[in-house]
């Protein structure tokens, strides 16, 4: 192979710029042109040796700076031409699976990941002059390009396994992309999953890990037991990925104390749900699955009490004091506005709205409770009749609103009866008409009452309190469950959070509103706000597909690449080296010229 087989230019036309050096010579000659200076008399200068020659620019004095600048100019022209060196060998691509499933122990002792790492290191040879290293989790990405097998091995040592599952589609896409790259000589892929036949010719797969029995926690979430209750309800799913039925026991530890324990007999390949009612309020909950197995990551799950979302209520009322009793309900956040200030946009941040003595001008976009609405509005078109004393006559016996309410003890005073409503059904009736109406309209729930239950919320009036909580619970649909965050899945950093402490103890400075993608470890993440307040979030693997270590589906990679025998030229650009040399020469010239110092020539003329 000749010289020109190993060297080339991306932009050969740039070599025309080599016409520039003569311009540099001209510039130098122009620079050497003597300055004209008026002196008092030339009489004493006559004695000096006159300059030789009278050609353009005077005597050209090509100093070392000229040759230095000529060299810089030549380098610059070469850099524009983008020279490269074409290597003989083909670069390799190394893809190592660092997803959570690689943490599983092998029968020989070390984890799958350690096993694969050693085997990849052994598979690298001295002919791999250049290799790009890729990892698969949480998303497949390139770690870097390394020159020499030793550099790749060193980079491999720095790669760590994550708690995050991999994105199978993205991984297959990466492998297909690498396979289509004709510059690559070979692709080493190390994973617990094989590649479905036919395996592309250039792909060398290294598979580690035989199928193993595994018991896993699929999910572990908390929710509020009922509307207004302080106790939480835990629910977990457990899976048996073994070849025989197994009794799986789950112990929930709340802030270090055992709070509950449940077990279930789960058939092979089946999933069971375990409930933990009335969990004591705590900050942190940890669920531990027994028996243990070779993949301990999914035998543990975490949850936080603060993650159980409360119910936010907007009270539109001319008497905001009535909302005071609502604030005492656990998990309820209340904001109050007078009817004159109400805007439908305020509903965007709340779960339900209460309109007391008021009716919105358009149908609310959230579930709403209308307390003693005024008649004649165009939306609800209530027909009401005011009464000094309300007599209860009937109620629906099976209804979430009336559930558990002893209406015999409910003593209603003044209020209003509703007439027949076109689209709301009566739930509680009185002597003069309906006292509670309910309906679903445009996907939202609405309840209207002919009396005001809000001032009576509390233990002093239990029937009224139960009725009120029933109504709010029905409208709030029991609020939301706890957040279910998974390893590898990014989440939006809440407002006010400046720093996040990872389960490893490492702190990461963050900005609110941005995506947080470093949740690759299972555990508790502490979110630190600027005002030093802390909230905690639990991040779990919660991926039964990953936990199923018995059945690892093979990856299907399209065999679209060329044969390995078709060597692709590897171009190594020389431009960065040329630019570095130019910078070095410029610095050298600056230093030398500065240290030599140019003599100051005063202006002698006027």
């Amino acid at each position: 192979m000749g010289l020109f087989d190993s060297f080339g230019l991306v932009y050969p036309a740039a070599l025309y710029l080599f016409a520039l050096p003569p311009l540099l010579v001209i510039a130098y000659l122009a620079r050497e042109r003597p300055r004209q200076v008026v002196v008092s008399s030339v009489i004493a200068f006559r004695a000096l040796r006159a300059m030789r020659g009278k050609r353009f620019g005077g005597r050209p004095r090509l100093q070392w700076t000229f040759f230095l600048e000529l060299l810089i100019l030549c380098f610059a022209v070469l850099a524009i031409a983008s020279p490269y060196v074409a290597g003989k060998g083909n670069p390799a691509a190394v893809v190592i699976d660092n997803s959570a499933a690689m943490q599983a122990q092998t029968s020989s002792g070390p984890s799958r990941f350690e096993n694969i790492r050693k085997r990849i290191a052994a598979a690298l040879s001295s002919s791999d002059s250049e290799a790009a290293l890729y990892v698969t989790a949480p998303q497949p990405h390139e770690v870097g390009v390394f020159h020499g097998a030793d550099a790749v091995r060193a980079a491999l040592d720095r790669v760590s396994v994550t708690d995050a599952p991999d994105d199978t589609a993205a991984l297959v896409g990466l492998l297909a992309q690498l396979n289509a790259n004709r510059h690559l000589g070979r692709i080493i892929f190390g994973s617990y999953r094989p590649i479905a036949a036919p395996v592309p010719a250039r792909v060398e797969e290294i598979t580690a890990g035989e199928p193993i029995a595994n018991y896993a926690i699929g999910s572990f979430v908390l929710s509020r037991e009922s509307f207004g209750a302080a106790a939480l309800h835990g629910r977990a799913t457990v899976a048996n990925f073994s070849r025989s039925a197994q009794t799986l026991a789950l112990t929930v530890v709340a802030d270090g104390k055992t709070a509950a324990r449940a077990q279930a007999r789960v058939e092979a390949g089946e999933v069971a749900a375990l409930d933990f009612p009335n969990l004591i309020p705590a900050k942190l909950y940890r669920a531990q699955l027994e028996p243990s197995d070779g993949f301990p990551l999914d035998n543990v799950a975490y949850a936080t009490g603060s993650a159980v979302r409360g119910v936010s209520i907007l009270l539109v009322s001319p008497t905001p004091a009535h909302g005071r009793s609502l604030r005492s309900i656990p998990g309820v956040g209340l904001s109050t506005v007078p009817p004159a200030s109400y805007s439908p946009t305020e509903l965007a941040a709340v779960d339900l709205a209460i309109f007391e003595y008021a009716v919105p001008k358009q149908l609310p976009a959230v579930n709403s409770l209308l307390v003693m609405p005024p008649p004649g509005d165009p939306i609800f078109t209530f027909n009401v009749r005011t009464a000094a004393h309300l007599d209860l006559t009937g109620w629906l016996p099976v209804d979430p609103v009336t559930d558990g309410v002893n209406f015999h003890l409910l003593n209603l005073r003044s209020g209003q009866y509703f007439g027949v409503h076109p689209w709301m059904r009566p739930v509680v009736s009185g002597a003069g008409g309906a006292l509670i109406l309910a309906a679903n309209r445009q996907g939202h729930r609405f309840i209207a009452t002919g009396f005001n239950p809000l001032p009576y919320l509390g233990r002093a009036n239990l029937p009224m309190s139960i009725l009120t909580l029933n109504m709010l619970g029905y409208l709030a649909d029991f609020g939301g469950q706890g957040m279910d965050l998974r390893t590898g899945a990014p989440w939006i950093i809440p407002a006010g959070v400046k720093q996040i402490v990872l389960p490893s103890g490492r702190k990461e400075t963050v900005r609110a509103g941005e995506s947080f993608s470093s949740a690759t470890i299972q555990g508790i993440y502490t979110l630190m706000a600027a005002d030093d307040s802390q909230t905690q979030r639990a991040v779990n693997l919660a991926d039964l597909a990953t936990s199923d270590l018995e059945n690892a589906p093979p990856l299907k990679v399209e065999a679209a690449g060329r044969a390995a025998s078709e060597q692709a030229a590897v171009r190594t650009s020389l431009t960065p080296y040329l630019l570095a040399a130019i910078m070095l020469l410029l610095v050298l010239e600056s230093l030398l010229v500065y240290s030599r110092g140019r003599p100051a020539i005063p202006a002698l003329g006027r």
Partner: protein
Amino acid sequence: MLGLPEEFTPDFIARLEQLRIKTRREYAGLGKGFHLSPRRGSSLEFSDFRHYALGDDFRYIDWGLYGRTDKLYIKLFKEEEDLLTYIFLDASGSMGFPANDRKFEAARATALAVAYAALAAGDRVMIRVLGGVGAPPKAPAFVYGRHRIVEIARQLGTLTPAGEVDLAPALAHEMVSIRRAGKVFVVSDFLAMVNSVERALGIFTAANMDVSAVQILGGSELDGQGLHGDVEVIDAESRERLRVALGPRERERYRQTLQRLSREIRNFCFRSGLRYALYTTDRNFHDFFLRAATGLGLVH
């Protein structure tokens, strides 16, 4: 102060008032003064005898001589008159370069210092400017009285050095308007060929005048005018161009040439009985003038 150069501090003025011009010969003045004149007068300085004539003041009869010769002789005394002082200030283009040396300013201060010393001693002063642009004194006229220094300073203050001046013809032209001999001060950089300078100063010696030459050179002018490398130098007066390559050796040679030129002018002055002083502008003016005063013919 009153338009005088900044060099004229009260202390310097006081020192100037203590000076008076001393000439190597006696010159007739235009009025009473303190210099001995070749004219007969009434000073205490004896001049000659003559025979007594009728009407002579017999207080001047030398009775001792009468006793020895038995003839009456009258003693004659010299007259004391003022001194006619001529100051020629070179304002040619060369005096303006190098600009940062302020050669012309130094030459003007020298001329004014001499003028003030003369006026303070009761002598008459005539200042003539060679070359330059501005408002120099036009008609050749003497000024008298120390207060006239302000007027002279204002006139010289408007001058800017310019133009080409060939010293010998210029001074010869000035000599036409000078009718009486006296003391002559020539203040110039004398940057001309030595024989040209000799010819110029020889005009005054031929006219029996007492000449003092003050050469003004710039500090950087003596040191190669701050030039380095390949330079095309242009003569400020003749506009002659010369391309030279100035390095350390060339600068030294230039310096030696200029010093030799100055030395030759000084030697000529000493040979011809002229007074000479060299002032380089990097020195303190007061020190120079007060030290060089005696050499220039200014005594206490």
